[in-house]
């Protein structure tokens, strides 16, 4: 929504409220519609109140949850790691090879 459109929407909304107020609804109507206005005005101004916190909550929930008391260490059988990639090259070039990799991961 462009800035011009937003200004138009705000002006239109204001004039509708004014017209209804003149028509006799005034305080009663505004009291009812205040929550809607409180939500709509920030949105028209491109504000999304609380979205950072909401996304943080969503991100927090989407992480895999660990059961309390569950073992943190892997129960998989430890295996020896074979040097690969850059480490393999380094091992082959080294006069004295680097220390052996630990067995457990």
């Amino acid at each position, binding site marked *: *929504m462009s800035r011009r459109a937003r200004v138009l*929407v705000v002006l239109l909304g204001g004039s509708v409220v004014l017209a*209804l107020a003149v*028509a*006799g*609804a*005034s*305080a*009663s*109507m*505004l*009291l*009812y*519609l*205040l*929550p*809607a206005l*409180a*939500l*709509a005005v*920030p*949105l*028209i101004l*491109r*504000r*999304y*109140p609380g*979205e*950072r916190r*909401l*996304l943080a*909550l*969503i991100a927090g*929930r*989407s992480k895999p949850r660990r059961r309390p008391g569950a073992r943190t260490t892997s129960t998989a059988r430890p295996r020896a790691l074979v040097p690969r990639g850059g480490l393999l090259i380094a091992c082959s070039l080294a006069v004295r090879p680097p220390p052996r990799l630990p067995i457990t991961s």
Partner: protein
Amino acid sequence: MSSQQGPPGGRLPARHGGRGHRVRARHAVRAVCSLSAGLLLLEAIWPQLASAHGIAGLASLPVPAWLFAWAAAIVLVVSFVALSTLWSSPRLQQRRLRALGRVPAALTPLCGLIGVALFALVIYAGYEGVPYYTANFDPTFIYVIFWVGVPVASVLTGDMFSAFSPWRAFARAVRWASRRLGVTRTAPLGYPAWLGRWPVVGGLLAFGWLELIYHDHDNPVTLASLALAYFTLMLLGMALFGIEAWTERGDAFGGYFNLLSRLALFEVRDGVLYLRRPLSALADLEIEPGTVALVLTIIGVTTFDGASNGVVWNTIGPHVQSVFSGLGLGPTPADELSDSIGLLIALAVVSAFFALGVRGMQSVSRRFPYSQLLRGFAHTLVPIGFAYVLAHYFSLLVWQGQAIGYLASNPLGRNANLFGTAHWHINYNFIDSTAIWYVQVAALVLGHVSGLTLAHDRALSVYRSKLDAVRSQYWMLAVMVTFTCLGLWLLSDVNT
């Protein structure tokens, strides 16, 4: 908030000036608090304006009626947060059915027979009964049982009207008889795709106009004549386009009740009764031409019904009427014309709220054109439409609906007592105004939470990024809160 879009992963882009943002947010909160305080002060100074009318005025409420709108808004905001955080993948986009058992084959013809008998009674009572709307069977049956009771029953039990529909039952009986005689006939025309649900929209508008605007709407002869005309039109449509095709799209009442029945937990298909997941039947609603207009018409007509008895239209209406009177029209046509304009304004206001919400959703992500979003989220308004209908007509249904007890025994109003219930009367203590108000508030809140749920589920399946989905739902939340507040204001504003 900047207008830049987030990355597909849904992470919020890093922003500069966090302190400035906090200051702005604080200013916004302060502005809202100041406005609230100002309005509360205005209410204290000017209490007669803020005092509730209608049911809310009659009910003994512990807090001012407008606080219910605030509470309803809070419930919607909490629902929005809960949906955003706890409902992380689409669950309603695929319909899951669980068979409960077979429906007896004789049930559909039996229901059809009852429907045809009731229709015949409406015609007979209309032409032969007394011309008083309180004593004749027709006005109460058509405006209360048929117009309000059948939608409620459809939401509770499923599409029961398709079994009771007199025109459908009559057409099916004719088809069955002709097949027995060895005459088989197919519909000469295919239902035009461009027509979609527009006949339902037209029919609902016409019925709404008849009920709310037409001066002679209570006349039993008028009602019987219109019912006969509609019956003939339906038979013609079914003869041209086929029974099922026309019933689903061309029959205003069949289409309307079928749409609302999608809120029900039950569904009958091929003679088997199924249980389905709540709201899932709305998610796979085919958005044919006219569907968006149909849901907006349901809400718009009910909105005008509330507004026409309220302060605003009672202030504006006479001025519009005087314009038509100045053109030389009599008081009745001038009043009908001004109310027709009021109905159009109500439809325009409701449509504008929804259109504004969808425009806002479009501003979140440019991937989807406006028309696609309009159609894609139209089904979310169906629970709201039903909530409006239930909230506005609940008192009519529970109070005036009791009249059918004595009218069934004396349908013509000529001192008959067919079932021994002619001496019954309406018990207004059956439910008090306070309970009605609470039912109305609950219906509106539940309807809007259901709409929000449908919108959230659709957004999850439409948007790639979580950020876009959440932002789009801010707009739907605003739409839902607006409709809730509007509905509660209309209910409290009714001068009854």
